Structure formats: structure tokens, C-alpha cells
């Protein structure tokens, strides 16, 4: 096992890793920018090193400073957390060169899954379903019609140069294809000065379902069930839960085995997540893989009783997985609300000093946070200030717990998304478990 781990991160995830290390008897080194000198990760680590000014590019993203900090403190491993350098293959590579263990997958794993096209191709080869579509460019309406026939309607046409919802059109039946194709093509020319378009199967009312996997360096791989992360705004997850109200045991088993197959095919090592889109017919499609620990990992910890950070560290230390797939059990239901320092209506960041704070407690409530009363939320970094996680007997119980915990959660001096979460938690579609990735758009347009 490692003697000393440097945590190349800040905020709640840095504190989360420090807690795991303390419980494992491993010494910790916090790094920080000059702005973060009063942060809890700095206070609770065994050692702390200031590595740069507030700007992330010169501190938390600056590899030479991080490696240098590891060298002067004698750390034998680096935990990257999430965000920042956690999916940067260079850091993983430089760690190898310097004889410091990177607590995560191999540089090759990161590089492959970091490239969307290569990742999809690798998954396709491994027999993992991906969203059916055309090659990168469809030349004509006729070609489009042929492909559409193969993948089935509805389809979506997208301008290759487009983005952010512009230059996109859904086609539900063959008759509309040629006209719409021409419209999108001219739109694309006009808007992006590039007439090229491609097409994909259009997934109606998709849910974002991701599977947590753990793979050791000896080729043992298991999955720990899914997380439903469909409540998201502009691809930012806001509420996650496990298990998903949309999965049957049969589908869970099938998708889980598919996720294991996916990571096996690339000889993945460490914890990681396979993300799928799930449609209303129980068909699922690989979208991407996260080669790191995720913000929402606690919901899986709550329902499986497995500490993912400790497992990640053990795997990096070369230990064999102690648990087998058939020993993984899901108990009850867990929900996480991400509390952001943001305006709850417009989601505009709201940094500033916290003048009063009450953090919820009691049975079934877990809070992962690095804030405290009088702490100043800095404008330089992510607006996530706390993760409120509950565990209940079933989904209804978990929702009741989340409601009472949200009521107890008071942060004054800055705006937070607490009121937003209260709104979602009382929405009838959420209560029924019938929600899709467009839930928040629909909520806001109503």
C-alpha cells in the first residue's frame, strides 16, 4: 500500500480522498492555490503545499508544479479526483516516468476513451451497442434515405459544423426525408458556411443511465449497478440516483454485463463509468466512458456499501478485487442532489462569503462538502459546494429523507440550488420516476 498520497484537486473531492486515506492509514499531501489557503482540504491533510496563483491553469492544472510538489513531499502516488487533470493522459504518463503511481487507469485507457470517435469504434468492435448513424458525412438525400432505412426512423440530421442544438432536425417518416435534408443542408451552408451533414438514430425520451465498474490490474472486472443521471441541465448533472426507477433486474443484469464487456475489451484498470442512453423500449446505447471517479459516486456507495475511493486506491496499489460480481448487492435507494453556488432559476454562479450555514444530519443523510460558516466560495473554480446524499429503504423513503434534509440545509450569503432541488423533488414526474434528459427544459418552459 502507498505511504503518502498527494491529492491533485481541491474542494469536496479532495476532502473525500483525504478521508479515505486517513481511514486506510495513508498520509496525505494537499496542494492548493494561493486563493485556497483557508480550504478544508488544506487544513485536514497531513501536509499542504501552495503550488500557484488562483488561476487553475497555473495551479491545479499545472502538471510540473504538481509533480514538483509530489517530489518535495515524497508522495508515492497522486490521486487526481474528478475534473482538472483527472482525464489528462499526460499526467498519467509523467507520473509513470517519475515513478509516482497515478491513481487511475493507464494513459492508453484515458487517451482511447477521451477520443469520442475512437471510443465509439472500439466499443462497436467489442460488440457494445452505440447509437446507429451515418459516417461522418452524408453526401446526398438519397444516401441519407438508404441509411435511414437501415437504422430506422425517427432519425436526426445534424450539421457537421453545428452545435448547441442549431442545425438539427428530427425526421419521423421517410416522406419527409428529402425535403428536410435539403433544408438542413442550406441552413448548414448559411449558418456555418459548411453544407456537410450527418445523421443518427433519434432516441426519444432518453434516460442517462451509467454503470459503475471496478477493474483491477489482474483482469478482474465487476460492475456495481447503475446510476440514473437523467436530471441534467445542458449536460450538467444535477440529481443522480441508484437504482434507476427505469430498470428491471433483467435489464440491469444485461446492461451491467455489457458494461463489463466494454471495459474488458480495452483492458481497463481502475474504477470507471460506462454511460448509456436508454430509450423507452429498453434499448440502450453506449455514449461515453469516464475514466475517473465521478461526482455522483456516493449514490453507488450508499446502495452497495462499497467505498469506491478506497477500492480505487487499493486497485492502484496492485491489490486484487476482494468482491465478486455475485456478491454485489443493492440495498435500498440513494439520491444525490448537487448543491451549487448558483442562482436557482438562472443557474448563474453566485460566489461570495457564506454568512450562516446549517448542514443537515441524522439518519440516512450524508453530506460531502468542504464549506463551513464564513467560508468564501471563490469565483475561480467550480460552483459545486456540497453533495447532499440520502439513503432510504426505497425510492419513496429516500425522497422523504431528501425533502427533510433540503429543508434543514441553510446557506446564507450566497445563492444556491437548494430551492431548485425542492422544486424537482416535489414534481409529479419525478415522484413517479418518469423523467428523461429533457426534464429540466420542460420544467423551465412550463
Amino acid at each position, binding site marked *: 500500500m502507498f505511504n503518502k498520497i498527494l491529492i491533485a484537486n481541491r474542494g469536496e473531492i479532495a476532502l473525500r480522498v483525504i478521508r479515505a486515506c486517513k481511514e486506510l492509514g495513508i498520509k496525505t499531501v494537499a496542494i492548493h492555490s494561493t486563493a485556497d489557503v483557508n480550504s478544508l482540504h488544506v*487544513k485536514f*491533510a497531513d501536509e499542504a*503545499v*501552495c503550488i500557484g*496563483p488562483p488561476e487553475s491553469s497555473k495551479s491545479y492544472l499545472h502538471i*510540473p508544479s504538481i509533480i*514538483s510538489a509530489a517530489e518535495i513531499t515524497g508522495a508515492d502516488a497522486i490521486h487526481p479526483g474528478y475534473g482538472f487533470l483527472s482525464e489528462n493522459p499526460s499526467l498519467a504518463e509523467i507520473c509513470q516516468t517519475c515513478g509516482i503511481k497515478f491513481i487511475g487507469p493507464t494513459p492508453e485507457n484515458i487517451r482511447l476513451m477521451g477520443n469520442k470517435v475512437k471510443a465509439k469504434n472500439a466499443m462497436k468492435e467489442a460488440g457494445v451497442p452505440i447509437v446507429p448513424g451515418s459516417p461522418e458525412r452524408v453526401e446526398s438525400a438519397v444516401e441519407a434515405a438508404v441509411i435511414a432505412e437501415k437504422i430506422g426512423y425517427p432519425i436526426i440530421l445534424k450539421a457537421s459544423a453545428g452545435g448547441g442544438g442549431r442545425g438539427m432536425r428530427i425526421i419521423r417518416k421517410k416522406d419527409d426525408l428529402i425535403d428536410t435534408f435539403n433544408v438542413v443542408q442550406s441552413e448548414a451552408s448559411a449558418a456555418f458556411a459548411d453544407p456537410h451533414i450527418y445523421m443518427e438514430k433519434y432516441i426519444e425520451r432518453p434516460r442517462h443511465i451509467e454503470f459503475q465498474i471496478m477493474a483491477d490490474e489482474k483482469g478482474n472486472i465487476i460492475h456495481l449497478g447503475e446510476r440514473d443521471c437523467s436530471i441534467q441541465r445542458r449536460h450538467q448533472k444535477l440529481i443522480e440516483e441508484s437504482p434507476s426507477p427505469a430498470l428491471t433486474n433483467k435489464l440491469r443484469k444485461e446492461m451491467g454485463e455489457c458494461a463489463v464487456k466494454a471495459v474488458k475489451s480495452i483492458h481497463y484498470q481502475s474504477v470507471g463509468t460506462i454511460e448509456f442512453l436508454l430509450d423507452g423500449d429498453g434499448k440502450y446505447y453506449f455514449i461515453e466512458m469516464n475514466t475517473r471517479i465521478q461526482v455522483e459516486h456516493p449514490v453507488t456507495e450508499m446502495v452497495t456499501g462499497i467505498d469506491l475511493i478506497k477500492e480505487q486506491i487499493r486497485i492502484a496499489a496492485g491489490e486484487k478485487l476482494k468482491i465478486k460480481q455475485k456478491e454485489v448487492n443493492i440495498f435500498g435507494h440513494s439520491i444525490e442532489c448537487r448543491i451549487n453556488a448558483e442562482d436557482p432559476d438562472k443557474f448563474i454562479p453566485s460566489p461570495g462569503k457564506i454568512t450562516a450555514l446549517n448542514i443537515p444530519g441524522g439518519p440516512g443523510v450524508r453530506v460531502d462538502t468542504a464549506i463551513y460558516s464564513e467560508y468564501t466560495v471563490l469565483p475561480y473554480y467550480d460552483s459545486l459546494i456540497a453533495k447532499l446524499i440520502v439513503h432510504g429503504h426505497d425510492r419513496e423513503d429516500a425522497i422523504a429523507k431528501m425533502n427533510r434534509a433540503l429543508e434543514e440545509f441553510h446557506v446564507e450569503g450566497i445563492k444556491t440550488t437548494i430551492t431548485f432541488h425542492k422544486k424537482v423533488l416535489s414534481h409529479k414526474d419525478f415522484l413517479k420516476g418518469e423523467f428523461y434528459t429533457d426534464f429540466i427544459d420542460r420544467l423551465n418552459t412550463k
Partner: protein
Amino acid sequence: MDIKELKRLVELFEKSNISELEIDEKGTKVRLRKGGVGPSEVSAHRHITHTPPTPHQATVTQTKIEEVTAGIKHKKVIPQGDNYVIVESPMVGTFYKASSEGSDPYVKEGDVIEKGQVLCIVEAMKLMNEIESEVRGRIVSILIENAHSVEFGEPMFVIEKI
């Protein structure tokens, strides 16, 4: 209310034992308060409240210092004033007084140095970064011992400008 009136009001207020006075007349608002104890008391008090003592207070005292920019973990006194220049480390790394073991140090306390003269080396990731003086002056003190680590922003030299 003109300035004369206001002056009389202030005098009245000062003589009285009233601590606060507020007038809102036809869109003119005047508010007087004595002492200003309140706010400063509050903020002083608050400061204490949010700094739980830490388990590594002894080893990493630099994080406990008020001055955010300086990781002052040494006991040497750092003189302040326009006359003095503090040379801070631009990176985290290892401090070397000389270009190699056995060589003479770049500078000693008391030395007069020119602008652009090399003061020390900070090694980070096997790269030897020469740190130059930005002013002409005299080395008042060297704050780091040879081959010890420095953090970003940590004071290394005090130079008196001449």
C-alpha cells in the same frame, strides 16, 4: 437640509448620548451613528469562528498565516517598507544556493547585487530554474536553507534597494 443645518445636526448628535439617529425627510435621508464598534467587532469575531485548528499546525504553519501571498514558515523577521524587496519563489520546488554542490553560492547575506543577477536555483521536475534579481540592492537575508523545499509564493530573499 443644507450643509449648515447638517453641521448643527452633527454637533447636536455628538453632544447627546444618542447612539444612532436617522432622518428621512422629503426624500432626504440622514443617518448618524456613533462609534462603529459594531461592524468591526462582528468581523473580528467571525474570523475566529471559521478557522478550526488543524492537525498539522506544527508542520505546515505556512497555511495558518494571515498573509495569503506569503508562506512564511521561517522565523526570520521580514522587514517591510518600500525600501525592501521580497523575492518570492515563482514555483514549488527545491531551493539551491549554488549551481552545484561544492560551488560557491550565488549570493551571500550582505552582498550587493545587480539587477538581473542570479540569486539561486529553484529545481522543479529536474529543471534548474535560475532566479534573477529584479532590482539592484543588498541581500539583507536569505530565508531558505540550501536544498530545502519552497512553495509557490514563498519568500526566499529580502533585498534592500540601493
